């Protein structure tokens, strides 16, 4: 590092190499246009270029890369779901995540912490046992542990939880992890860009052109692009983009808020989640406690934060960790979660030829970033749904064939 600094002192042009290079002008035509330069959209672009040899791809974003829910989540990665579809899908995602730093030549700070879902009553404990058995059946490391075992890993936890709702056990998921979310988006952007994918930031899509049930292009303020394939990965803006293509959507948008405290010495090396208290907390590599809660109680297309959220969340956190009373909250923010009726995503082909959806990720999209990108890339390249995402098709709502993923959200919605 010191030598590099010295070298830079003697040369004029010392800029770091750019992570992605995009020409200033949009082309008139692309093979594939991806709307949304978040983790999912960029991952899809990366796998399309790497695995399918498709390079004439544009990723468009209304804002900057990773600025939506990719940069707003609390970065928890786990696969202890309840339905067979969910468990297998997220287990594949975790496998990809563990290799992602090497794959992307980018340190994503993947850190296995162990994930405790606390049970404060008999019925939650019963669901935990159900989840643990389903997980074990699909070879996912997951078990129910008693309060003593929780205390051995996290001695700071107050097990009587303020006396109101004592902890009776937990679902323990040892591979539960956290990762640096920006690095995931930037790593995918770097690798996709290396293979010729263009990433155009600050380029909103204002309309999607459809002729005879086939996508023919997208309209942006920088000009109209003609393309036969459009992939939509825009999280909280999904209903608006679907409306551009003339499709109704079953999605409802709710704000999901989170906050971080001031940095502290490392003391919490696991991820603690409580469905009953509506909270999840982990400590980041910077030492901040990253905390989140349940969805806001009303639909809203906005990223506003509320004081009620912080006070409500801190009230519950103090029941678990009373010694945090003097710690200050540094920042809070919100993202727009696209919730589906069955808490499972909507992925794959749609009734419009060439229009592909990667949506409905609600409160659980970050942990699925690699597998969503990979399966969507297969789907977009081949034009038919990857077998792993067939259960998540948009058509399931026409047939009342819902997925019913009760393990979807870390906290009850």
């Amino acid at each position, binding site marked *: 590092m010191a030598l590099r600094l010295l070298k830079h002192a003697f040369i004029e042009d010392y800029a770091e190499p750019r992570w992605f290079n995009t020409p200033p002008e949009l082309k008139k035509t692309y093979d594939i246009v991806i709307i949304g330069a978040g983790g999912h959209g960029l991952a899809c672009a990366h796998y399309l270029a790497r695995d399918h040899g498709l390079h004439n791809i544009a990723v468009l974003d209304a804002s900057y890369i990773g600025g939506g829910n990719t940069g707003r989540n609390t970065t928890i990665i786990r696969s202890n779901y309840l339905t067979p579809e969910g468990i297998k899908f997220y287990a594949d995602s975790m496998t990809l995540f563990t290799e992602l730093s090497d794959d992307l030549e980018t340190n994503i700070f993947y850190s296995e912490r162990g994930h405790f879902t606390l049970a404060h009553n008999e019925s939650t404990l019963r669901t935990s046992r159900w989840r643990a058995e389903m997980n074990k059946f699909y070879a996912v490391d997951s078990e129910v542990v008693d309060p003593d075992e929780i205390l051995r890993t996290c001695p700071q936890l107050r097990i009587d939880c303020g006396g109101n709702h004592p902890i009776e056990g937990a679902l323990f998921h040892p591979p539960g992890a956290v990762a640096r979310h920006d690095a995931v988006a930037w790593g995918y952007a770097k690798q996709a860009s290396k293979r010729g994918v263009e990433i155009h930031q600050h380029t909103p899509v204002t309309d999607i052109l459809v002729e005879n049930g086939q996508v023919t292009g997208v309209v942006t303020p920088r000009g109209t692009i003609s393309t036969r394939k459009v992939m939509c990965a825009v999280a909280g803006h999904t*209903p*608006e983009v679907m*409306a551009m293509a003339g499709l*109704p*959507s*079953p*999605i*409802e*948008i709710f704000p999901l808020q989170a906050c971080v405290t001031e940095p502290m010495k490392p003391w919490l090396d696991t991820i603690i989640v409580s469905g009953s208290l509506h909270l999840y907390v982990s400590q980041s590599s910077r030492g901040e406690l990253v905390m989140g809660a349940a969805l806001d*109680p*009303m*639909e*809203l*297309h*906005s990223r*506003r934060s*509320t*004081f*009620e959220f912080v006070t409500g969340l801190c009230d519950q956190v103090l029941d678990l960790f009373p010694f945090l009373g003097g710690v200050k909250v540094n920042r809070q923010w919100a993202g727009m979660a696209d919730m589906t*009726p069955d808490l499972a995503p909507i992925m794959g082909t749609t009734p419009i030829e060439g229009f592909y959806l990667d949506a409905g990720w609600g409160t659980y999209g970050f942990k699925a970033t690699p597998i969503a990108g990979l399966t969507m890339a297969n789907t977009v390249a081949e034009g038919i749904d990857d077998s792993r995402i067939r259960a998540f098709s948009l058509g399931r*709502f*026409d*047939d*009342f064939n819902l997925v019913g993923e009760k393990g979807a959200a870390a906290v009850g919605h």
Partner: protein
Amino acid sequence: MKTINCPLLGWRPVSEFTAAGVLEPEPADLGEMSAAQWVFERNNVPMRRTEWWYHGATQLWFKVLRDTATDTIIDVTTARD
């Protein structure tokens, strides 16, 4: 604190209320629409819309006209109106 100007109760904190979803009268006849479309389809872009809101303490229901882009409450009427 965010408050709601209620026609019967005056200004009350929003935390006393529960949002209960969009007011959508059930059609007498589904017509061209399938049952699945009625159940699942949403026209869920940001808009002004009328919703049911419930006040827990008094067990009263209200119709609230709200902007889902800005979270501003424009009008509150009683369930009878």
